[in-house]
């Protein structure tokens, strides 16, 4: 790789890590813990995945994000936990359906297929509970569950495909989806809050 290409790659990693740190900071975590987890996810991205039969589990893109999801579910209240789990199920279904129904050629889609999967997660989490934490869990678990469903169908058809879960590290669709879902939820939440505030102010004036 040329030196200039290396600079471009490093810059992309830094921008993306900054984004992930900001997102993790919203997950019942201290600033330092969010920074540490981002570093661990980055380090885990360079380690080989754990192989269990036909399943490969990535450390940076699978195990650590799943650990964060588990931590969030444990710390959530009963109602939030139920909503999040329901959101995960619906997100996985939506991602599976999007995969099957949208055009298979990437250039046909208005948004890259890797990015598109975070959209239902963010929308569903916001509708179900206005929760950024729920959005992260829905984004990560939704993608991984959809991938698992595809692998199960492949195996049933006799296709010897390997199920890779989060082996793409920080660049994995599961992490991207979690981050996008939180950002989308935040965007919708802030927009709705500002609209409500404006409406209330108008009401006060009249």
């Amino acid at each position, binding site marked *: *790789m*040329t030196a*200039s*290409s290396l*600079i*471009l*790659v490093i*810059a*992309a990693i830094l*921008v993306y890590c*900054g*984004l992930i*740190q*900001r997102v993790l*900071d919203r997950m019942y975590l201290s*600033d330092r813990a969010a*920074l540490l987890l981002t570093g661990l996810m980055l380090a885990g*991205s360079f380690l*080989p995945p754990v192989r269990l039969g036909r399943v490969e589990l*990535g450390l940076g893109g699978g195990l650590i994000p799943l650990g964060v999801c588990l931590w969030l579910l444990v710390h959530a209240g009963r109602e939030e936990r139920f909503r999040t789990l329901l959101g995960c199920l*619906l997100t996985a279904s*939506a*991602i599976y*359906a*999007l995969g*099957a*129904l*949208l*055009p298979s*050629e*990437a*250039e*046909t*889609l*208005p948004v*890259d*297929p*890797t990015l*598109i999967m975070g959209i*239902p997660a963010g929308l569903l989490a916001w*509708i179900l509970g206005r929760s*950024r934490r729920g959005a992260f869990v829905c984004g990560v678990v939704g*993608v991984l569950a959809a991938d698992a469903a*595809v692998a199960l169908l492949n195996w049933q*058809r006799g*296709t*010897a*495909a390997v199920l*890779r879960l989060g*082996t*793409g*590290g920080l*660049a*994995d*669709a599961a992490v991207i989806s979690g981050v996008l879902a939180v*950002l989308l939820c*935040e*965007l919708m939440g802030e*927009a709705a809050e*500002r609209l409500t505030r404006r409406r209330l102010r108008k009401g006060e004036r009249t």
Partner: protein
Amino acid sequence: MKRLVLLLAVLLLPVTARAGDMRVWRIETPDGQSVTEICTEPSVGDHYIAGDNAEYEVVTVTEGRAVAQPCGVAMLPGLDWMDERDAVAVMSPQRRIALYCTHTDESYEPSDGVYSSEGRGSICDVAQALARQLTERGVDARVDETLHHPHDAGAYRRSRQTAVQLLRSCAPDCLLDIHRDGIPDPESYAVTIGGQKASKIRLLVGRGNQNGESNRAFALMVKAVADRVYPGLIKDIYMGRGAFNQDLLPGSLLLECGTYTLEKERVLASMPMMADVLDRALYGGVVGAAGNVQSDAGLAARRGGVVQGQADYQRGDTQEVGSGLLFLGAIGLLGIVGLSLLSAGSMRGGMRKAGRSLREMTGGLVGRKPEPGEEHDHS
């Protein structure tokens, strides 16, 4: 009730989305002259470089037809280094190229009897053939044959993991995603080069990512070398919407090796030529890891200890990386300003929030570290 309606709308979103069909789109000039055919929907802003290097930009897209405005002739990189005589082969750096197939089901109907295979499609044979030819030229070529079935919108999501695995395991100079086209007319890809029946290859570059310009420069270098050594091998270059996982590495390309109505044997016959082109475009054509054998007299010129072909590519790449860095900067700035403004409601409040975020992220290295009790902007 409102929530239920919204929930149903989200669930119905995929159902209302248009299912993907492999229809052929015709790209024409404003006066109706045919430019090319592509089997997926073009988008406004897509660029196309034809075999004769004429460049077009898609300006309108209507049902089944796109209009592209000619925008001059694409500037291909200079290949003076290929004319050098009495060149001295030099120690070459570790040369690695990684290959994978996102659509592992793709097959060639005349040879395989099917358009798409239930298991390993014969596109994997094409990838293996290219890798074998590269290996013969001293390049460490790795193929990952992980299946990404089914052939749906999730295939690129799944193949992304394969691409990352390849980057992690062998740190390649170049990442190639091997496909075959879905255009029904075999003649659009059939070619005879040096008396041998072969297949043309289309290069696809995703323009929607930070590496878009860098990958375009690489595609132009590949086309320039191919036009010189094997005229007609590279059909054209299409720069479309999407990333095709090319955001992972500058120096990534998607190769459309023939189309499904062409015999696989023709496509396989193109692989030695394509391997030679890639070898020359990336490494100047010096054979052997130690660079002690020359592939062709006078091809690998030595300039200050660097193979000249690679030096040219590096120079071109350096020029294009700037736009990638600008792309990243713009995305970062837009995100910070947008979110800060939205949550604070004013420019001053937004700047305060952005500053606080920066102080938080750097743990106090930049500015004062926020106190634990200090107002937090999120719930």
